[in-house]
């Protein structure tokens, strides 16, 4: 199988801290790949580097044969991303959010309108297309974000903890849809999650990262065998230890989020 994501000795330092340290892995075309790790292990930093939002300190990085550092625009057209935190405009309707994305990714108007309708129907949002997004529930927003991420027919879909804060029904439905897209359209999915049962269910292969380093790689089966455990949850704990990690809220984005909560969501 040809690899669509190739990462070798990838490192990102912030001052003295190595958030990601000599990480190497490959993701095959059409694969569902889970990137697991405790809070602050370096998952989001890795995703940001893969999606051109951060420049690596050192190492090799290839998305569909292209280096994100050099061909950032070409790489950007090839993936869709659902961020850990919402990135929709609450003051626009669901349709307008989709439309804006389509224009950004140069999807021709006719194709755009068809795909928007198709995707909104798949994710059961078509009836609500003219509602302002700020009126949506958490699950609806997530579905809209995924639909939006798929609008420009990307080859890879990045999902950074997409089921955080969703109820079991919504989570279940969301993974069914993702799995379905992977099977029918051969979409490569790169996901992070804290729910091991979800990773076990949808991922073909996975890597576990801790303190910026990859500690294990393989299929869910292989990880369980490696650690001689019965479930992926146990395998994960055996690989990363059971100490609780506190993610420091020192980044500006985190502070802003706290402010937003304090002031009540204006948007």
């Amino acid at each position: 199988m040809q690899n669509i994501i190739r990462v070798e000795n990838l490192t990102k330092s912030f001052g003295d801290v190595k958030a990601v340290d000599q990480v190497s892995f490959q993701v095959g075309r059409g694969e569902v790949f889970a990137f697991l790790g405790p809070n602050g292990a370096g998952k989001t930093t890795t995703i940001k580097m893969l999606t051109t939002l951060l420049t690596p300190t050192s190492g090799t990085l290839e998305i569909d044969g292209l280096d994100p550092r050099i061909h950032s625009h070409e790489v950007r057209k090839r993936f869709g991303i659902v961020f850990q935190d919402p990135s929709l405009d609450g003051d626009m309707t669901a349709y307008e959010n989709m439309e804006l994305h389509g224009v950004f990714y140069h999807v021709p108007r006719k194709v755009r309108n068809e795909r928007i309708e198709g995707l909104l129907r798949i994710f059961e949002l078509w009836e609500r297309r003219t509602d302002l997004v700020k009126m949506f529930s958490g699950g609806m927003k997530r579905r809209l974000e995924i639909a939006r991420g798929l609008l420009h027919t990307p080859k890879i879909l990045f999902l950074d903890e997409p089921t955080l804060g969703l109820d079991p029904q919504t989570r279940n439905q969301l993974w069914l849809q993702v799995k379905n897209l992977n099977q029918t359209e051969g979409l490569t999915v790169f996901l992070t999650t804290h729910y091991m049962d979800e990773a076990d269910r949808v991922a073909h292969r996975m890597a576990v990262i801790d303190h910026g380093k990859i500690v294990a790689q393989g299929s869910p089966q292989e990880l369980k065998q490696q650690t001689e455990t019965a479930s992926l949850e146990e395998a994960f704990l055996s690989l990363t230890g059971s100490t609780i990690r506190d993610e420091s809220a020192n980044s500006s984005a985190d502070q802003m989020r706290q402010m937003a909560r304090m002031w009540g969501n204006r948007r």
Partner: protein
Amino acid sequence: MSAIYILWLRELRRYVRSRAQIVASLGQPLLYLLALGFGLGPVFQKAGQGSYIQFVAPGVIAMTILFSSVFSGIGLLWDRQFGFLKETLVAPVPRIQVMLGRTLGAATVAMLQGLLVSIVCFIAGFRVAHFSTVPLAFLFMALIASLFASLGSAIGSVLQNMQGFQLIMNFLVMPIFFLSGALYPLTNLPKAFSIVTSLDPLAYGVDGLRAALIGVSHFGIGLDCIVLAVLGTVLLFIGSHLFSKIQI
């Protein structure tokens, strides 16, 4: 180009939808116009300067455009806070286009707000001196709007949170307004103060508007135009540069 258009359209859509905000934002100009217009009117008249409403209306219009455009520009901060900024930064669109679309949108919204206040001024009794120079007034409104929208975008690119916002309000936007001569004539001021006011970009905006609307000018229309256009361009470049440096 279409990315610029859709971002411009976004600003407009948001403006049209926030009806309560539109009404609320008319409150302050109205207060200045009526309270100062009628309150200071008699003194102004006695000093032999004519009608104060006539004098202050262009200043109030300029003030509205100043506040509206800087705020819209700083709206970037909200986009950062509520995550939408990420969507624009990860898209295959040059950042300069994102910045231009936003800034043009902010400027357009400020223009509309300025026009709305112009109508309010007219209702309050303000009359233009010559209708032939009204297009010139539109030009000045557009210049003020783009200059301060660019300034707002530049500030919004650098600010990390809402604390900084208060700082900008008190130490930049308010001084720009009060030193611009929107409320008082710039003639016969103490020397030092007069130098300070001549460093205020809005002073040239207010002066240009006054020239176009009531036919009175301190600096001269030519200088007003040049200062606004040159500074506006410079700020647009600075804003684009700062915007391109944003990291999330």
